[in-house]
């Protein structure tokens, strides 16, 4: 018997492409955020809400939406006159770096400040795949139960911001916010949590400020 020691990350191929994307976006000083949630948490609704607000603040951006088969989300965003590229994963439960690379080629990225990626609705696999983003945003909602951070710790661990959407529903659903926040802190102590409602608009401005601040930091970072 012969043995050869290898120490190679299984994600190497994906990570290499992700690094290329990161280098490109660093050069162009464009911030990219990767929004990860379970289906129905409100990612597309959030983008419909926040897109026009970003525009009014003079932020130049494009949206990449991932979906297994349909282009429903992209159509919703397109209807608002926002720049959007649809990625169909052909059934795969996540977006990977190669798909994002192709999508970026369809966008005129020069002059952009921000790329927002709506990942496929799934709290497991998207957390696994680096797509060259500056940060992942874990997008939770009150309708899905307070224990999701505990059940899906990787996405919490990998994120730089946690958004808890649908706080307007708190009076109807049994969602223990303190418990949820406690779980989040245990998995990722420094993680900022912003509570929002896409319905009432509560908290959206805070997320916007958070993103604006990250864009500013990215632009100031000299190569």
């Amino acid at each position: 018997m012969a043995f050869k020691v290898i120490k190679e990350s299984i994600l190497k191929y994906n990570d290499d492409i992700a690094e290329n994307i990161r280098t490109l976006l660093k050069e162009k000083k464009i911030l990219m955020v990767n929004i990860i949630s379970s289906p129905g948490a409100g990612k597309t609704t959030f983008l419909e809400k926040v897109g026009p607000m970003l525009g009014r603040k003079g932020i130049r951006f494009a949206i990449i939406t991932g979906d297994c088969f349909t282009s429903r989300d992209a159509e919703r965003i397109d209807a608002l006159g926002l720049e959007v590229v649809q990625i169909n994963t052909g059934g795969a439960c996540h977006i990977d770096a190669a798909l994002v690379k192709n999508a970026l080629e369809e966008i005129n990225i020069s002059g952009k400040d921000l790329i927002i990626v709506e990942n496929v609705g799934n709290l497991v696999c998207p957390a696994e795949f680096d797509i060259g983003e500056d940060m992942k945003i874990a997008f939770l909602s009150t309708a899905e139960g307070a224990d999701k951070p505990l059940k899906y710790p990787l996405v919490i661990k990998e994120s730089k911001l946690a958004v808890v959407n649908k706080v307007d529903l708190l009076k109807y659903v049994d969602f223990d916010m303190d418990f949820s926040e406690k779980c989040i802190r245990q998995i990722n102590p420094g993680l900022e949590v912003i509570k929002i409602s896409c319905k009432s608009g509560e908290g959206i401005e805070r997320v916007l400020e958070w993103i604006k601040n990250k864009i500013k930091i990215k632009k100031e970072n000299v190569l």
Partner: protein
Amino acid sequence: MHEIKLTENIVAILEREVASPEVGRVKKVHLEVGRLRYIVPEIMQTAFINIPKSEKLEKAVLEIKTLPLEIKCQTCGAVSMLKDFRSDFICGKCSSEDVKIVSGDEFNITGIEW
């Protein structure tokens, strides 16, 4: 569900490794995967069988070592192992909630046997 895509990556890495002439027909491929990676070994093994491979890899099987989810207490320094994701993230020794994950996100090919 992400096992298939990841297994394709594994095959791609292995094809490059077995290209060197000193490597014979591979019997076993060793992987180490942390609990946080949510890998179901059986699904990955089946995917591995089904993905087309070169002759040297045809008969290979995946030996997947699952590494535990471990947390380190920031108060007393003790390292405790968590059985599953749903267990409370608290120190097994002093029950402090101030803990950090120290292992569980490994995801490597560690070797091949032939």
